[in-house]
């Protein structure tokens, strides 16, 4: 268990990493910009074309990426505790499926960015309420019932998404696929997601020690003085909203929500007081770095960032899995 001092040191280091990742995202691209010039464009609003590129293209994109990565990692960490399942990720309860239906519908209908985001958010909320209502039937909620309901709803959404891809007009397919794999190229103002990220984190932090107990089982937590029912509902709501916001802005970017909490847990232990803020910083940095790679590796061709997070995530995850098995065996 980390002491408070050690936790703060780790968070300071991760905050440094976050700043580095954003600085990298501002410098790298079709027009390389030196660190000093980046600083100058940010400080005095000048810098001609370079200044425009940094302020109106790269900075909003990097900040949106950071916020979405942070939201996904935070939602993943919260859901892993809620479901007491280390393999849970933000999409396991069908929220991305619902958002996918909404977004693809908007693309088929030819709506703009606002329409896609709006319908995606409506779809995410719909899936969230559906799972909550169905899982909360008679006899209350158990984590296995919630998980099963979510998985089934997600599977249903997946089928609808596939159906829409099958019948969609040819010229819309590329946009639809990019959305499904996760994409930061169509981002607007990052303020809303950044505020949401801060809000969700600030609401969940005071309950971090109670989440530590919840991870050990609902009965144990209740016996040790945790009001389990409201806590579980709150966690579900926060994790769902965080996921919906991230998915709405950047599509269904995979692996950030699964991998990042695991990495932090392996490095520092399963104390949510450190895990939640550390996941936000590490998840944000990972997505910013992955997105920077996505727009530079095959430039001028842009890759969907979800492909890169998965390509980084899969080997890391498999490595951790085999290492964990060896350590326990």
């Amino acid at each position, binding site marked *: *268990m980390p*002491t*408070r001092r050690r936790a703060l040191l780790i968070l300071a280091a991760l905050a440094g990493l976050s700043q580095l990742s954003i600085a990298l995202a501002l410098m790298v691209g079709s027009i390389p910009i030196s660190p000093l010039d980046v600083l100058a464009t940010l400080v005095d609003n000048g810098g001609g074309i370079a200044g425009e590129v940094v302020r109106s293209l790269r900075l909003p994109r990097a900040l949106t990426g950071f916020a979405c990565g942070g939201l996904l990692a935070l939602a993943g960490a919260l859901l892993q505790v809620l479901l*007491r*399942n*280390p393999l849970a990720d933000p999409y396991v309860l069908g929220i991305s499926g619902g958002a996918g239906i909404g977004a693809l519908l908007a693309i088929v209908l030819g709506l703009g960015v606002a329409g896609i985001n709006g319908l995606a958010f409506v779809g995410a909320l719909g899936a969230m309420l559906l799972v909550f209502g169905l899982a909360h039937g008679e006899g209350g909620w158990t984590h296995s019932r919630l998980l099963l309901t979510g998985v089934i709803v997600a599977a249903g959404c997946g089928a609808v998404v596939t159906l829409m891809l099958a019948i969609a007009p040819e010229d819309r397919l590329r946009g639809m696929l990019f959305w499904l794999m996760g994409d930061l190229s169509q981002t607007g103002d990052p303020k809303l997601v950044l505020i949401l990220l801060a809000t969700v984190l600030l609401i969940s932090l*005071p309950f971090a*020690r*109670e989440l*530590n*107990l919840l*991870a*050990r*089982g609902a*009965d*144990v937590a*209740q*016996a*040790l*003085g*945790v*009001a389990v029912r409201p806590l579980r509902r709150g966690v579900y709501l926060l994790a769902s909203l965080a996921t919906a916001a991230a998915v709405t802005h950047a599509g269904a970017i995979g692996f950030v929500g699964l991998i990042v909490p695991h990495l932090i*847990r392996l490095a520092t*232990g*399963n*104390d949510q*007081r450190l895990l939640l803020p550390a996941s936000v910083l590490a998840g944000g940095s990972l997505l910013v770095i992955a997105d920077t790679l996505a727009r530079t590796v095959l430039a001028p061709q842009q890759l969907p960032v979800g492909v890169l997070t998965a390509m980084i995530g899969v080997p890391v995850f498999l490595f951790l899995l085999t290492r964990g098995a060896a350590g*326990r065996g």
Partner: protein
Amino acid sequence: MERTAPLLTTRALAVGIAGRTFCRDLELSVQPGESLAILGRNGAGKSTLLSVLAGLREPEGGEVRIAGASYAQLGARRCARIRGWLPQSRSEAFSSTVLETALVGRHPHLDRWDWESEADAQKARRALACVGLADLVQRDVQTLSGGERQRLAIATLLTQAPQLYLLDEPLAHLDLNHQIATLELFAALNREEQMASVMVLHEPGLAARFCSRALLLFDDGTTLLGRSDEVISSDSLSRLYGYPLREVGAGELRWFMPA
């Protein structure tokens, strides 16, 4: 003993699950220093009754009070400083060390922004030493044996330091020596610090030896409550388990053998 309020009382308590009633009109009172054994067949409702007594499940009727107040009046946090509950089974979904696991017992004593202090860690280490796990403080709980996990759960409860211990099968997975050590540990807490314990046991001989009173839950929903030396007899036990039992030994060391 009349001077202090009872740590646990029930009034007209009815407990059941899924349409089955385990007990009706149970009037129970556990004073500081007392220990009560709950005996009954598999499925007789021992664990369900214990979780109702622990405030984790609603009764079908009647009420439960700890230290004179209801669970609703006290709220989850204050309850956790009065009563502790040892679950029958537990599973750890995530890795953590033995010391971290024992430290969760401090939760009800800490404020929202507090971190566990060195004093809390000392309490946890003492509790782990009490159950013979002092050498394993840094081990991952997922690598522990069944008996070690059981002793760790007892240490977590000791770290919580409540006044009333509600123990669901505290002897599960334990070797004979650890069984006796565990029962002696709680007997000493009752004797020396005026704590109280209610425990689900499977061995009537140990119940007779270590618990001052016993509650027998029969299959037909009736109960028998009284002093251990009165209610734990070969007659009542034969009826309880539906198998003839014969008493051997005498005084404190009575044992019941299947005939």
